[in-house]
């Protein structure tokens, strides 16, 4: 530990005070949600919190869960999981009003759609929503992602529509939808969020077919598609899930010959796959559904975290933290988290998961301005 200056404790009846470096160390043990009130204690504590966050405490992406009723008024309860403190936290958001079912096909992007409105949010806590006109084509299960200065919506088209591969882009600058080049023909049978895994990097939306690893990408500048590339991790993978990792991609794949999940780092330039980890078998068991095996696994990636769960029986989440070694990824730390929502809750309501890097600023703002309350769920 750095010890630039030591503050002495007094030995007589004077009060003990903790300042400076020592205070920053103590604060680095405090969960993020408690750091917001801590910063209100005094001016010196405020700067100690800031300094502690800058130098000592590395924040980790939260898993966010919305448990939503399937019918109007779509009442929702939100929980978040903070991997730093290993706590589930119940969030009350008095200002939020959901007019439809929440959906997400990409890490921290949430949207709702009705015949008159398309609403979306991509800030870490989904506290800010944009409401715009709905896209032209009516869709039930599209891929929706924010790429650069736009929102891309593709596939998931209703049966009565003409083109199952239709793509539209909402541009933040022009504030309008425009129809773009449709998805490639090779994705015809799988053009929906249930069959495609998506990731975004550097102005590109990358789309991978979960069953085959067939990959295409959409450039938000040129508004056109490229590919096809077939992801080849060099092992028999039957389910492909991708996510953004720094400038590249992460691939989580299920190898059915060994019944195990493995992780590869994939270059966004040439799609070369390099294995970086594999899930210990004890955790693989936790993702297995009694009736449906390993189908319907969902994978969420944010920064160096991978959250996985079986959407049929979301009793436990498996988490992987990728730690960096020299010149890249060093190792994986695996653990599991029991779902805060009990079985009954899962049966009547929809569960929507996102994951994002929640920072001090976001928390501070929603607590102070929007009156959100965060309460640790006691286990």
């Amino acid at each position, binding site marked *: 530990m750095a010890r630039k200056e030591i503050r002495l404790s007094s030995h007589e009846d004077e*009060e*003990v005070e*903790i300042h400076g470096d*020592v205070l920053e160390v*103590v604060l680095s043990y405090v969960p993020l949600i408690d750091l917001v009130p*801590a910063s209100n204690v*005094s001016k010196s504590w405020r700067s100690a919190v*800031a300094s502690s966050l800058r130098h000592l405490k590395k924040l980790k992406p939260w898993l966010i869960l919305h448990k939503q009723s399937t019918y109007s008024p779509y009442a929702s309860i939100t929980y978040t999981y903070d991997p730093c403190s290993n706590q589930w936290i119940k969030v009350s958001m008095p200002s939020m009003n959901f007019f439809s079912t929440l959906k997400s096909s990409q890490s921290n992007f949430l949207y709702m759609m009705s015949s008159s409105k398309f609403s979306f949010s991509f800030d870490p806590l989904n506290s800010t929503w944009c409401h715009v006109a709905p896209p032209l084509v009516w869709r039930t299960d599209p891929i929706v992602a924010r790429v650069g200065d736009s929102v891309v919506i593709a596939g998931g088209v209703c049966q009565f529509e003409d083109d199952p591969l239709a793509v539209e882009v909402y541009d933040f600058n022009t504030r309008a939808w425009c129809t773009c080049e449709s998805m490639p023909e090779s994705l015809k049978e799988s053009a929906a969020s249930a069959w495609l895994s998506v990731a975004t990097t550097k102005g590109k939306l990358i789309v991978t077919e979960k069953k085959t690893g067939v990959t295409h990408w959409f450039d938000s500048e040129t508004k056109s598609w490229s590919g096809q590339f077939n992801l080849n991790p060099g092992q028999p993978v039957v389910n492909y899930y991708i996510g953004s990792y720094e400038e590249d991609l992460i691939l989580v794949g299920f190898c059915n010959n060994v019944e195990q999940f493995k992780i590869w780092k994939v270059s966004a330039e040439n799609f070369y796959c390099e294995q970086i980890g594999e899930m210990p078998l004890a955790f693989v068991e936790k993702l297995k559904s009694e009736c449906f095996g390993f189908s319907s696994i969902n994978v969420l990636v944010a920064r160096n975290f991978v959250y996985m769960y079986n959407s049929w029986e979301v009793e436990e989440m498996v988490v992987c933290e990728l730690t960096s070694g020299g010149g890249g990824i060093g190792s994986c730390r695996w653990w599991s988290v029991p779902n805060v929502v009990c079985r009954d809750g899962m049966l009547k309501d929809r569960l929507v998961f996102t994951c994002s890097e929640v920072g001090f600023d976001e928390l501070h703002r929603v607590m102070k301005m929007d009156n959100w309350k965060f309460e640790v769920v006691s286990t």
Partner: protein
Amino acid sequence: MSSSEERKLILKSSDNEEFVVKESSAVQCLTIKNLVEDRCVSDPIPLANVDSKILALVIEFMEKHAETTLSNSEKKEFDVEFVKKPFDDLLELILAANYLDFRELMDVLCNTCAKQMENWSVEEVREKFNIQNDYTVEEEKAARAENPWAFE
């Protein structure tokens, strides 16, 4: 060699009380370990920043954690009991653990503090940590609308 395991050190508190400890226990404190490795050990080792009451507690923790016969869960049970002390004592122990660079003790103490802070209001935190609120009423209100700090 068995004789090196039994090597003892004398630690002297700020109020001049001397404590004899095994070197093998004491080197859990990196400050002391560095002195031993650099062969700068004076006899006794003066610890100007730690008084006898606190030093005795630190030594108690140190020796428990150095015992190889104890399991991790037994050490954890000890830790749980060890931190049941007045909060001011915990703060003094934190300062001592920081000064001595005693990571394990620091960990246990900081985790305890953090856990306790979860349940306290801002006012309670101020009271327990002996802090003066230096925000004016206007500043507290303004703190709501101020610009975010740049962290990274």
